């Protein structure tokens, strides 16, 4: 089986300070990969390279056999909502409509078809009743669901998420992972997180990244430690095994 995403000997740094060194990673169709590691370990940088925002210094990255910036329309991306402007005058449904925005659509309005698609994914994420609300007035969990809606409304082949459960409480965190694992039957998911938490219940592989990268099949984590263990103990186990 050909990998969907293939990263070979990827190296990247800012001004000679290496952030990622000799990264190798293959992601296959319907994988659910958790990328974990400490802050500053290069998780977000790797995500930005996969999205085509940054170019690797050496090595290669291909998605669907092509360069990342030429396939971005097949990618759904969920950024961290905490970086978004709370004051911005925009309704929830309009945020999600952005997921259908094309560079060559020259009308100020979206089509009826776009709206029905938006309402469809809002039903799926159980936020249909928030459509007319201002995005900045939502709670953290509601914002996260809105951004997931925006990412999946265009039927992407893969979904990248940057810390989707940062600053939401444990119940919402588990909820979000459940939703994602439902999507996983059609969509390949790559999720960046600074903790293991509930991830190990849902992902099939974990990539530990701290300048270099080590892959663990999920059973390796679960066999070492029962999943009920606090995540601190989980992280320490993985750190130990990677030798990072």
């Amino acid at each position, binding site marked *: 089986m050909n990998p969907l995403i293939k990263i070979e000997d990827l190296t990247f740094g800012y001004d000679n300070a290496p952030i990622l060194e000799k990264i190798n990673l293959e992601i296959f169709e319907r994988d659910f990969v958790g990328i974990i590691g400490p802050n500053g370990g290069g998780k977000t940088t790797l995500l930005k390279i996969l999205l085509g925002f940054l170019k690797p210094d050496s090595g290669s990255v291909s998605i669907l056999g092509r360069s990342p910036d030429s396939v*971005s329309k097949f990618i759904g991306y969920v950024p961290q909502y905490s970086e978004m402007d709370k004051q911005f*005058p925009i309704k929830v449904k309009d945020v999600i409509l952005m997921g259908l925005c094309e560079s060559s659509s020259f009308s100020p309005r979206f089509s009826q078809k776009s709206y029905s698609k938006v309402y469809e994914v809002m039903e799926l994420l159980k936020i249909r009743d928030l459509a007319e609300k201002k995005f900045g007035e939502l709670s953290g969990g509601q914002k996260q669901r809105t951004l997931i809606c925006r990412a999946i409304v265009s039927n992407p082949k893969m979904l990248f998420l940057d810390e989707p459960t940062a600053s939401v409480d444990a119940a919402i965190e588990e909820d979000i992972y459940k939703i994602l694992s439902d999507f996983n039957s059609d969509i390949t998911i790559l999720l960046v997180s600074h903790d293991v938490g509930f991830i190990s219940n849902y992902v099939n592989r974990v990539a530990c990244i701290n300048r270099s990268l080590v892959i663990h099949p999920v059973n390796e984590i679960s066999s070492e430690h029962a999943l009920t263990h606090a995540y601190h103990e989980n992280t320490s186990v993985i750190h130990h095994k990677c030798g990072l």
Partner: protein
Amino acid sequence: MDISAFFENYGFITNSIIAVVLSSIAAGITGTFVVVKKISYIGGGIAHAVMGGLGIAYFIGVNPIYGALVFSVFAAILIGYVKLKLKQNEDTMISALWAVGMATGIIFAYLTPGYNVNLLSFLFGNVLMISTENLWLLLILDLIIAAFVFVYYKQLIFITFDEEYAAVRGINVNLLTILLLIMVALTIVILVQTVGLILVIALLTLPSAIAGMFSNTLYKMILLSIALILLFSLSGLALAFSVNLPSGASIILMAGAGYILALAGKTIARSY
């Protein structure tokens, strides 16, 4: 007094009201983007850089508004390039354009034989003296701005709200950002006529900031901004006429008073 005699004597009133309406439309559209994208410092930089164009135009004896056009668009492109391509903090470049533009303008005005007092009207605006030629130019610039925002409305909201995701969706963020800055530049050229380059930034921020307090979509914010700017401009103009005050400064004081009132009203409403 018959109509023609009225226009002969008071035609400047009609002209200034047309100028105020045209500039309100441009300022309402652009001001909304300046406020939500938080680029008022870029607006200030472009406005002051325009002084260089005005000075040189005076020196070589062409309509100063063309000098303003060239300099504002040049400044917008330069700031955009530094921001997007060089990925440098654009603050230093803005400050440099701000100061060098002003200095260039002052030097050329000084070198122009028979120092022209009209230069002062570009600093503080004098809508009562606007020429018919400049009114036509205002109309053309207005149409360009309105057409641009109408055609690229979705994409402009998108790059303003979430630049990164816009890029993922394949939208040409760099090109649209430069075009947005050029729109700011054109609007500044319009507003230099009415409130002057020093006061431009107040008219681009205060009314739209008020509109933002009461809007949940961008087009409502634009329409409300236009209405507010019309209100402040016409009431400012009335004040200027009735007690013989400078028009640009009167308009800005109205906008400032409106902003304080809105802020106070909002705070009081929230505490009850």
